[in-house]
């Protein structure tokens, strides 16, 4: 295996980490994470504006994982739990936060994700607003409840570019890492 998830996770945990997790992404886990982060943000006395943005982005990031994580075949999974995902929330500076998520995707999804994120990153704030409204008004929710709006919403609320990369695990599976900065 060319990409070492444990080594990657160790590196993510440098700096001022508010919360880090690797394992199954379930509905209960999402509730717990949100509760913990909400309390920590209160304690840090950040402005309500930044607290709300961090909370919102966290909800979308976690629910993106929840809706899109694929079950992996045994040989790829190794010691990873089912519905495996990584989440790290860190405080870069006063009122600056970084949310990193990671999950395994099939190689077939790379192009779709790359195209979508590159497109989002190329848009101005007004264009993102139009894109959001168009998807909101024209695309149906999937049976799982996802609406294709999560990444657009994250980009809109943060005003920052989405930073991502794909690390090769096997010929068919890649680790998708997404960094979102809230400032």
């Amino acid at each position, binding site marked *: 295996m060319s990409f070492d998830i444990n080594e990657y996770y160790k590196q993510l945990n440098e700096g001022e980490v508010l919360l880090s997790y690797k394992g199954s992404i379930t*509905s209960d886990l*999402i*509730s717990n994470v*949100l*509760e913990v982060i909400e309390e920590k943000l209160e304690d840090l006395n950040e*402005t*309500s*504006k930044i607290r*709300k*943005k961090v*909370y*919102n982005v966290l*909800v*979308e990031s976690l*629910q993106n994982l*929840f*809706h899109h994580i694929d079950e992996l075949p045994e040989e790829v999974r190794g010691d990873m739990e089912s519905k495996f995902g990584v989440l790290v929330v860190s405080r870069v500076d006063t009122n600056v936060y970084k949310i990193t998520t990671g999950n395994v995707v099939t190689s077939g999804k790379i192009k779709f994700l790359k195209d979508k994120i590159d497109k989002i990153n190329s848009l101005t704030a007004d264009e993102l*607003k139009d894109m*959001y*409204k168009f998807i*909101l*008004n024209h*695309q*149906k*929710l999937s049976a*799982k*409840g*996802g*609406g294709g*709006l*999560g990444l657009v*919403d994250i980009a809109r*609320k943060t005003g920052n570019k989405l930073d991502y990369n794909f690390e090769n695990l096997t010929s068919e599976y890649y680790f998708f890492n997404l960094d979102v900065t809230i400032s």
Partner: protein
Amino acid sequence: MEPIIIDGTAKTPTVKFDSTTGVMEIKGRSIPENSIEFYKPMVDWLDEYAKSSKDQTVVNVQLEYFNTSSSKCILDVFKKLEAINKGGSKVLINWYYEEDDEDMLEAGEDYESIIRVPFKMIEIVE
């Protein structure tokens, strides 16, 4: 017609829909993983209400957080209100947002630009 009364949870809002007063309220957080289940009773209820709506219908939306899954369901609720507004009832949507919460104000304005129903943006000052 029976009212809808749902208590809020950490992930779902408090909901009160009352056909005798024509006042509807959605308040709190709306961040469930799958919002379709949660909002379907409201959409169905509005279909029923449309048949015998009050002269005036007031909808108070006061959300602290809502996720993108909910945003589509809220639009579905608003589309029903648009139809009711075209029919026999004058509808007003009061969209509440907390002071400094520009994202929530903007979200209200997004809906206002899509739905042909009068909106009133109301800032909650602490």
